[in-house]
């Protein structure tokens, strides 16, 4: 297992595309850093941005979703494209170990991209943000949020990291299934949205059918809203929770849901790898 990990991490860290992606992440983040520090920063301004708001801005501008789907597809499909898959799979290592090593290396790349955003965001926040007390009690982490109240910062950071890991697991599963870089990228970008749309159409049709039953229609609508809140493309949004009526526990639920996505899509990816025949 260690040999496989060493092999994949060597492959990862010698990829120029990794550093290109990290650079692409850093550029807009540094631009926002510059803007916050020069244009918007005023020491005497009592309503200046909070650390949470700065991190939100950085994550939004970084376009992590697109970069992760592109890099994961390239990395995940490379061995099939180059033919090196024949050598790797014929050495006697078990398929699930091969999958785990590749998955871990690819996830590390996604984590590194997030880390770039986080590091610059935290530095920017430490320099320019309004400091705020972080309530780490259970009420502070799980309690009800008032309008415009912010979640616990650590919970938020973990939540965003788990969203990254959840979408990465989905994109890696797609790459293992399709094994063609271009198609994997396209499917990775559009598939989550297509799933949401299909669910939306089904909900619309069922609501129309159940027009007389207002309770059922309301439940269908709530189910769809809940699905949208936690399904892959929407969980990338960092504005969830800023509007009235949300609770801090939503962030914790989001963490749990994304752990579930990692296990679900990671498990499916492993199954695909174990069953794959190298034609």
């Amino acid at each position, binding site marked *: 297992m260690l*040999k*496989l990990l*060493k*092999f994949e991490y*060597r*492959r990862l860290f*010698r990829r*120029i595309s990794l550093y290109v992606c990290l650079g692409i992440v850093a550029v807009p983040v540094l631009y926002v850093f510059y803007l916050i520090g020069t244009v918007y920063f005023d020491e005497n301004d009592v309503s200046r941005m909070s650390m949470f708001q700065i991190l939100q801005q950085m994550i939004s501008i970084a376009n992590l979703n697109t970069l992760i789907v592109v890099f994961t597809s390239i990395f995940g499909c*490379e*061995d099939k494209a*180059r*033919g*090196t*898959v*024949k*050598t*790797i*799979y*014929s*050495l*006697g*290592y*078990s398929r699930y170990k091969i999958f785990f090593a590749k998955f871990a290396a690819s996830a590390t790349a996604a984590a590194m991209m997030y880390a770039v955003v986080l590091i610059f965001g935290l530095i920017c926040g430490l320099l320019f943000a309004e400091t705020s007390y972080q309530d780490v009690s259970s009420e502070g982490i799980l309690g009800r949020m008032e309008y415009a109240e912010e979640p616990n910062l650590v919970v938020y950071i973990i939540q965003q990291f788990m969203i990254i890991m959840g979408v990465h697991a989905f994109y890696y599963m797609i790459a293992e299934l399709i094994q063609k870089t271009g198609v994997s990228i396209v499917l990775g970008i559009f598939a989550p949205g297509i799933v949401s749309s299909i669910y939306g159409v089904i909900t619309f049709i069922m609501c129309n059918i159940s027009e007389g039953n207002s309770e059922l229609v309301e439940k269908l609508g709530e189910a769809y809203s809940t699905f949208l809140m936690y399904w892959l493309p929407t969980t990338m949004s960092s504005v969830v929770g800023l509007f009235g009526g949300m609770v801090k526990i939503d962030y914790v639920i989001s963490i749990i849901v994304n752990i579930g996505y990692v296990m679900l899509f990671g498990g499916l990816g492993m199954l695909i790898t174990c069953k794959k*025949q*190298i*034609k």
Partner: protein
Amino acid sequence: MEEFALRTFGLTKKFGGKMVLNNVSMNIRKGDIYGFIGPNGAGKTTAMKIILDLLKPTSGEVELFGSMRTSGSLSRVGSLIESPGLYTGCSAIENMKRFSIICGGTDKDILFYLRMVGLEGVGNKKVGAFSLGMKQRLGIAIALLGDPELLILDEPVNGLDPMGMRDVRDIIQFINKERGVTFFISSHLLGELEKIANVYGVINCGMLMEEITSAELDRRCGFSVRVRCEQQDKALQLLKENFGVENAQAEGEFLNIPADPAVSSKINEVLVTSGIPVHELTINKMSYEDYLLSRMGTLNVGNGVGQYA
């Protein structure tokens, strides 16, 4: 001690409804250079992929080094299947270093194998700029990493010039002789296999037609005397009466007589003294190629494809 490096029992593979391999049972002894011959599409690569666990057989078993195939036994096997899998954005040395992590081998081994395949001068060159022959050599070098006991090579001389082909043959013979490594080599170029293999497996349409040692093949590929003469019917009768030759055949102007070369002068004497003019007499030996073609029906003979009804 295991007698066989590789055995298969009833290997069968279907893709959809199409039977690609049909009940293939082969036996490769340790130390052999086993030439796996068959035309394009015969099932050679499919058989190799099943042995290497790249494909699952529909039925059948694979035995490696005396026991059913396990991850441990596969780690003793090196392979090169179809075109070599290489990271084209990296140098030859970087490719070798990566694979040495999972295959085994030290930096010293890397340089040794690169030198062996004639790539020591281009170790730092990006593989994307390599010719087909250079990539093939690098693929062989990677297959040698970790000192495997069995090497499975699918068309290893593909894309190589005659000098390259000779170099690969020399490498195979050297490693087989010095280290006792068993080779399982597929090719449609019988001329190349003939020079190194000591056992042949002949496959066609997914079926293993025959396994035969080179000694047995030699015995079966006998001599014949070819005569161009008149009065062929009378000549055939005389040959039967004087030499007991029952299976001489007329082929156009010629009579093809399976016989030892030593009696060729006697044949000539008998025919001439019986009043049959002999215009031409030659001694032929059936080639391996002719024999194997007769077992197969279709074979790629070097640059062209020989098609037989």
